[in-house]
C-alpha cells in the first residue's frame, strides 16, 4: 500500500475525532451524521496521493449521504459500516495498510455489498479475485445453510405475496417480502452465487418501487414476482445439485424474466409519500409539493423528491431528512412479526434425545421398583426419588415436544396452491386459514402435505362452482375455502371445508354401481354414499382436468392418513358444501396402549381400537363351519380371533368360555380378540422393528416395557388380515410356516 497522507500525525488525530463521532452516531440523528460527513469530506481532500484510502472514504461518504436521505433499508447496518470504515482507515494510517484477511475488512465488504454500495474498484483490486470463486465450494456448510434459509424465505414470500395481492395497500406486507429478497441477495453476493444475486436484485428493485409507493400491486406484478420465486428455487436447486456433484454451476437464462420485471418497473409512478409527510409537518404546502413533483417528472435521470426539494431550497435539508427517517420508521413498524427466538437442530439429535429420555424413564422405574429400594426406610430418599420422577417426566414431555412443529408452514404452502388453482380454473376463491399454531409431529407434517394438496385441489376443482353458477344460486361469486387445524382430545383435527356444490350423491352412486362397488339393489345411507369416494379407482369428475388427477386420489389420501394411524371422514350438504375431516394422532412417537398377555408373551394393543372388554361365558360361544368361532355380546355376533394361534405363541388358549375377550374395531370391522390377561394401560414409545421386519403383518412396531424387555405393538388391520387369510379354505399359509 503505497502513498502516505501528507501529515500522518494530523491525519491520525483527524481520524481519532471521526472514530469518536462514528461511535456516537445514531441512525436517526441527522445533525450528527451531517457533522460526520463534513469531517469525512475534509479527510478525502488530504488523500489525493492514496487512491485506496480515498476510495474507501468516498464509499463511506456515499453511505453517509444515503443514510441521511433515508435510502438505506437497514440504517443500523449502515452505521456499523461507517464505524468499520473508520477502523480500517485507522489500521491504514498506523500500519500503512489494512489487513485483507482481517475480520474488519471482511465485514466491511459484506456490509458494503448488503448496503448495495458494491466494493470500490480500488479496494476490490486488493482482494484476491480467486477467493470468491473458491468460496462457493469451500464452505459447503455455509452454502447448505444458505439454501435452507433461502427456501424458507421463499416460502414466506409466496404466502405474503398472495396476501399482498388481496391487501395491496399494506406496507408491512411489502416490507415483509422485500426484506427476505434483500437477505437472499446479500448472502448470495457473499457466496458468489451470481445468478441468484442477479435475479433477487432484479426482483428487489421492482419491489423497491412498490415500497416507495411508485408502483401499484397488481395481479401481473404478483405473477412476475412469483415467477421470480420459482426461478430462484430452480437456481437454488441447481446450486444444491452442483454442490452434491462438486461440479460447476450451470447458468440459467434469466433474461426473459428480467425483462418482464424491468418492464413492470417502468410502468407507473405513484406519488411518493415523502411530500405528504412534509405537508403534514407544515414544512411545505401541497401546491409546493405538486410543483416539485412535476419538476421531478421532467428531470432525467430520475431524482428523488427529497433532493429536488432541498436543491430548490423549498425545504431545509434537515426537515427532509427527518421526514425520511420518519417515513422509514413508519415502514419498519408493523413489518416485524413477533417471532420467538429459535435455533436449528439436527433432527437425528432430537430423535436420539427422545430415545434416551425413554431409556431414562425406564431405568428410573426399574430403580424405583427394585426391592432394595422398596425396603429403604429413608424418607428423604423416597422424597428425592419422587422429585426425580417428576423432573424426568417433565423432561420427557419437553423432549417429545421438540419434534412438534406448527402446522402453519404447511398451511401457508396451500395459499400459493389455491391462488394458482383459482387462476387456472377461473374460479374465485378466498382461503381462510385457522389454527396455524396447532402443533403436529414433524414426521407427520411431510406426510400430510400430499393429501392436503389433493383435498384442496378437489375442493377448488370439483367442490366450488364457477362465479356465474354461484351467483345464479344466490351465493357470493367468491367461493370460500377453510383450512382449519385444532387439537381435540388426543388428536389433531384438520378440516378442509368449502361452500361449493357438495358431493353429487347420484353421480357417486351411479359410478359405484358401474364399477360394481355397490350391488344393484343395495340401498345406502347418504353418509355411506359419501364415503364411497374413498374406494380405489373412484373419481366423479366428468372429464379429467389438468388440475385434479385421474381418479387415483381419494383412496390414496385415505391410505396415507390411515398409515399415520389417522382417520378421514367427509360430510356434505348438497348445494352448501363439503367438509373433509382428518383426525391424526398427536404424535407418531407415543401411543396409548393396553398391555395384554397371551401365554408368556406380552403385547401392546393400541387403546384407540379397543371398544370394550368382555368376560365370556360358554353359552355365548359358537363355532360355525367355514366361518370359525363367533361370540355373542348383547345379541351381536363377533368373529373370534385367537392370538395364540395367529402368533403361534404356545398352544390353543383353551375354550373361550371363562376367558377374556377384547372387542376391537378397525375400519368398521369388529372382532373379538381372545387374551389371557390384561396387565394394564400405559403410554408407550413406538420404536421401529427395523428394516428386517418392516412388513411383518399384525405388528405396528415395538416398545421397551417397564422391565426393559421389548414388547410388540399389535396392529389390528394386519391381525384381521392374517385371520382372514387363515380362514380361507386351501390357504394354509400359517401352517406351512409352523412346519
Amino acid at each position, binding site marked *: 500500500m503505497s502513498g502516505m497522507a501528507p501529515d500522518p500525525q494530523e491525519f491520525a488525530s483527524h481520524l481519532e475525532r471521526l472514530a469518536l463521532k462514528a461511535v456516537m452516531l445514531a441512525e436517526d440523528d441527522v445533525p450528527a451524521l451531517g457533522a460526520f460527513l463534513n469531517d469525512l469530506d475534509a479527510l478525502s481532500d488530504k488523500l489525493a496521493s492514496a487512491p485506496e484510502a480515498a476510495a474507501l472514504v468516498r464509499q463511506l461518504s456515499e453511505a453517509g449521504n444515503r443514510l441521511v436521505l433515508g435510502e438505506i433499508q437497514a440504517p443500523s447496518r449502515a452505521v456499523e459500516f461507517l464505524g468499520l470504515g473508520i477502523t480500517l482507515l485507522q489500521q491504514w494510517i498506523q500500519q500503512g495498510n489494512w489487513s485483507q484477511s482481517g475480520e474488519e475488512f471482511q465485514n466491511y465488504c459484506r456490509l458494503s455489498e448488503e448496503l448495495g454500495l458494491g466494493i470500490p474498484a480500488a479496494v476490490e483490486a486488493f482482494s484476491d479475485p480467486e477467493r470468491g470463486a473458491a468460496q462457493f465450494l469451500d464452505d459447503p456448510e455455509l452454502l447448505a445453510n444458505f439454501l435452507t434459509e433461502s427456501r424458507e424465505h421463499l416460502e414466506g414470500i409466496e404466502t405474503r405475496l398472495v396476501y399482498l395481492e388481496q391487501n395491496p395497500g399494506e406496507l408491512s406486507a411489502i416490507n415483509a417480502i422485500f426484506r427476505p429478497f434483500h437477505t437472499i441477495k446479500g448472502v448470495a453476493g457473499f457466496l458468489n452465487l451470481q445468478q441468484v444475486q442477479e435475479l433477487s436484485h432484479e426482483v428487489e428493485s421492482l419491489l423497491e418501487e412498490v415500497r416507495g409507493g411508485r408502483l401499484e400491486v397488481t395481479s401481473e406484478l404478483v405473477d412476475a414476482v412469483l415467477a421470480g420465486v420459482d426461478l430462484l428455487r430452480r437456481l437454488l436447486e441447481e446450486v444444491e445439485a452442483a454442490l452434491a456433484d462438486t461440479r460447476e454451476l450451470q447458468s440459467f437464462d434469466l433474461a426473459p424474466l428480467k425483462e418482464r420485471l424491468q418492464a413492470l418497473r417502468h410502468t407507473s409512478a405513484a406519488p411518493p409519500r415523502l411530500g405528504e409527510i412534509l405537508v403534514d409537518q407544515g414544512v411545505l404546502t401541497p401546491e409546493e409539493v405538486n410543483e416539485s413533483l412535476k419538476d421531478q417528472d421532467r428531470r432525467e435521470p430520475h431524482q428523488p423528491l427529497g433532493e429536488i426539494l432541498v436543491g430548490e431550497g423549498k425545504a431545509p435539508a434537515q426537515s427532509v431528512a427527518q421526514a425520511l427517517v420518519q417515513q422509514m420508521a413508519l415502514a419498519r413498524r408493523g413489518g416485524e412479526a413477533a417471532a420467538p427466538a429459535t435455533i436449528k437442530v439436527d433432527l437425528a439429535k432430537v430423535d436420539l434425545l427422545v430415545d*434416551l429420555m425413554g431409556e431414562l424413564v425406564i431405568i428410573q422405574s426399574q430403580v424405583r421398583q427394585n426391592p432394595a429400594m422398596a425396603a429403604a426406610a429413608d424418607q428423604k430418599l423416597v422424597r428425592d426419588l419422587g422429585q426425580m420422577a417428576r423432573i424426568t417426566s417433565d423432561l420427557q414431555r419437553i423432549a417429545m415436544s421438540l419434534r412438534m412443529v406448527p402446522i402453519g408452514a404447511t398451511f401457508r404452502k396451500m395459499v400459493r396452491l389455491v391462488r394458482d388453482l383459482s387462476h387456472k380454473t377461473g374460479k374465485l376463491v378466498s382461503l381462510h386459514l385457522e389454527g396455524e399454531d396447532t402443533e403436529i409431529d414433524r414426521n407427520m407434517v411431510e406426510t400430510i402435505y400430499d393429501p392436503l394438496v389433493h383435498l384442496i385441489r378437489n375442493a377448488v376443482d370439483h367442490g366450488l362452482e364457477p362465479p356465474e353458477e354461484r351467483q345464479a344460486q344466490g351465493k357470493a361469486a367468491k367461493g370460500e375455502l377453510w383450512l382449519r387445524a385444532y387439537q381435540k382430545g388426543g388428536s389433531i383435527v384438520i378440516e378442509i371445508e368449502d361452500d361449493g356444490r357438495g358431493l353429487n350423491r347420484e353421480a357417486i352412486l351411479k359410478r359405484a354401481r358401474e364399477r360394481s362397488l355397490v350391488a344393484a339393489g343395495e340401498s345406502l345411507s347418504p353418509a355411506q354414499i359419501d364415503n364411497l369416494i374413498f374406494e380405489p379407482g373412484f373419481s366423479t369428475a366428468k372429464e379429467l382436468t389438468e388440475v385434479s388427477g385421474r381418479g387415483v386420489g381419494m383412496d390414496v389420501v385415505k391410505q396415507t392418513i390411515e398409515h399415520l394411524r389417522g382417520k378421514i371422514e367427509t360430510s356434505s350438504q348438497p348445494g352448501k358444501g363439503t367438509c373433509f375431516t382428518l383426525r391424526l394422532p398427536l404424535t407418531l412417537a407415543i401411543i396409548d396402549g393396553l398391555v395384554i398377555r397371551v401365554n408368556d408373551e406380552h403385547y401392546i394393543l393400541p387403546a384407540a381400537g379397543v371398544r370394550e372388554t368382555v368376560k365370556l361365558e360358554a353359552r355365548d360361544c359358537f363355532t360355525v363351519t367355514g366361518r370359525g368361532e363367533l361370540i355373542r355380546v348383547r345379541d351381536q355376533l363377533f368373529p373370534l380371533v385367537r392370538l395364540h394361534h395367529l402368533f403361534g405363541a404356545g398352544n390353543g388358549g383353551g375354550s373361550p368360555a371363562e376367558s377374556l375377550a377384547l372387542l376391537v374395531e378397525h375400519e368398521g370391522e369388529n372382532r373379538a380378540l381372545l387374551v389371557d390377561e390384561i396387565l394394564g394401560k400405559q403410554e408407550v414409545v413406538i420404536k*421401529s422393528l427395523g428394516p*428386517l421386519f418392516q412388513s*411383518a*403383518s399384525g405388528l405396528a412396531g415395538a416398545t421397551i416395557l417397564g422391565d426393559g424387555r*421389548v414388547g410388540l405393538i399389535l396392529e389390528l388391520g394386519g391381525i384381521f388380515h392374517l385371520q382372514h387369510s387363515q380362514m380361507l379354505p386351501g390357504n394354509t399359509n400359517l401352517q406351512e410356516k409352523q412346519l
Partner: protein
Amino acid sequence: MAQAARQLDQENTALHDKEGKYLTFTLADEDYGLEILKVREIIGMMGITAIPQTPPYIKGVINLRGRVIPVIDLRLKFGLPSLEYGERTCIIVVDVLSRLGPVQVGVVVDSVSEVLNVGGGDITPPPAFGVQIDTGYILGIAKAKGGIKILLDIDRVLAAEELAGLEKSSG
C-alpha cells in the same frame, strides 16, 4: 495353463484382501471367524421377544440401550441342532449392510473364543463339501493354531435371512 495360473493368482489376491483380525467363536464344536470390523459388541444372553410369523432361526428382538435390534440364532440358521442357552451363550452384535441400508443384528453363538490375527497366506478358498454349512456364507478357511476356522461372510448370511424374513411376513 497361463490362464489357470492367472485365475489362481486372482484368487490368491482376493484371499489376501481378507487378511486381518477376526473374532472367533464356536458353534456346534466348529470354530468360526467374523471380521472384527463388523463386530459392534458382545453381550450376554438377555430376554428375547419372539416375533410371530417368522422362521425359527429368527429368535426375535432385544432392547440394546433403547434400540430394538433383531437376533438370529446361527445354529438354527445353519440347520444345526439347537442347544439350550447357557452361561457361555453370547449375542454378537454385528453391523451388516442390508438391501435396506445398514442395520445392527445380534447373532447367537455357543461361545466367543478370541480375536485372531489371520494372515492372507493362511486363508484358503472354501471347500466344495465337508463343512456343515452353505459354502456361500463362507469367505474362506483359515489355518490357525489349534485347527481351522471358518471365516463367515456375515453380510451374505444375514442378507439371505432378510429375504426369507420378508417373504415370510408378507404372506
